[in-house]
């Protein structure tokens, strides 16, 4: 489940970003980044539960939205929005990683057990 752990760590970074990039006086950034981070944590957390094990794939939608917001909100993007682009693209990569990535998929496990 290392993919999900990295997603949660990335969400923590996103929540802290307005303070790191000195944009904390803008409440839109603080609220938006906190809520998006919470959403990423919830989706990563739900992936630990068997019935919602594919929830991490919804992070692909969140990552795409975050990257598009960062790119097109203000041009050229200020540092806080550049961070949104980088985090969004990074989430797109990590969200693709399967839950038990180092093991064969369940359907093949009987063969090698």
């Amino acid at each position: 489940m290392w993919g999900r752990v990295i997603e949660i760590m990335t969400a923590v970074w996103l929540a802290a970003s307005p303070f790191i990039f000195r944009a904390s006086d803008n409440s839109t950034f603080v609220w938006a980044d906190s809520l998006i981070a919470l959403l990423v944590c919830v989706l990563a957390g739900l992936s630990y539960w068997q019935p919602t094990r594919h929830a991490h794939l919804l992070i692909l939608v969140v990552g795409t939205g975050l990257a598009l917001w960062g790119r097109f909100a203000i041009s050229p993007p200020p540092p806080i929005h550049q961070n949104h682009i980088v985090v969004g693209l990074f989430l797109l990569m990590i969200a693709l990683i399967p839950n038990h990535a180092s093991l064969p998929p369940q359907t093949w496990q009987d063969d090698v057990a």
Partner: protein
Amino acid sequence: MTSELDRNVPPYNHNPSAWSQRIPICVLAFVAAAISAHLSLFQWGFIESAWDPVFGDGSNRVLKSSTAERMFGIIGIHDAALGVLAYLGDAILGFAGSTRRWQYRPWLVILFGIDVIPLGIVSVVLVFCQAVVVGEWCFLCLVSAMISLILVYWAWDEVRASLSYLRLVWKQNSSVGLLWRAFWGYRSEAMERAAETLLSREVR
């Protein structure tokens, strides 16, 4: 269990998905990501100069050139930051999957190949831009371009194994549906037969 997962894949006399094959790729990709991160710090203005023992101020001029600024205008982030993401992608996609992922998760291997091979091409294009468009050289950019080409060389055998497996699934069954399911790592007798055909080939 270990022997089934670690079988050699002809025409190679090794398993291209083995950890011994993939860990060096991940380590080298992390090194390239660290180099790109250093270059990004300069482009962001966090450090005064990029380290360059060969071309002196050439690196700074390349990284702040009008070509680099134009790329920033298009992408919205600096090209070095994009490099960090691409190399991290190589490392992450290289690390995910079992030691038989060439068969069990072909989508992951092909995605890894797409990330590694175009990255190598982009690196060559960037070196070309330095020489022709900017007229300056950047030592760390050249090092990361070299790493990209090494990664292409190292990653190719695994991508080839996955493509050969998918080709055999197609050749033996001529079914788009079966090929699609094989791509996503589903299991069936036809897929096992294709894998066995591949594994029983003669090693050159």
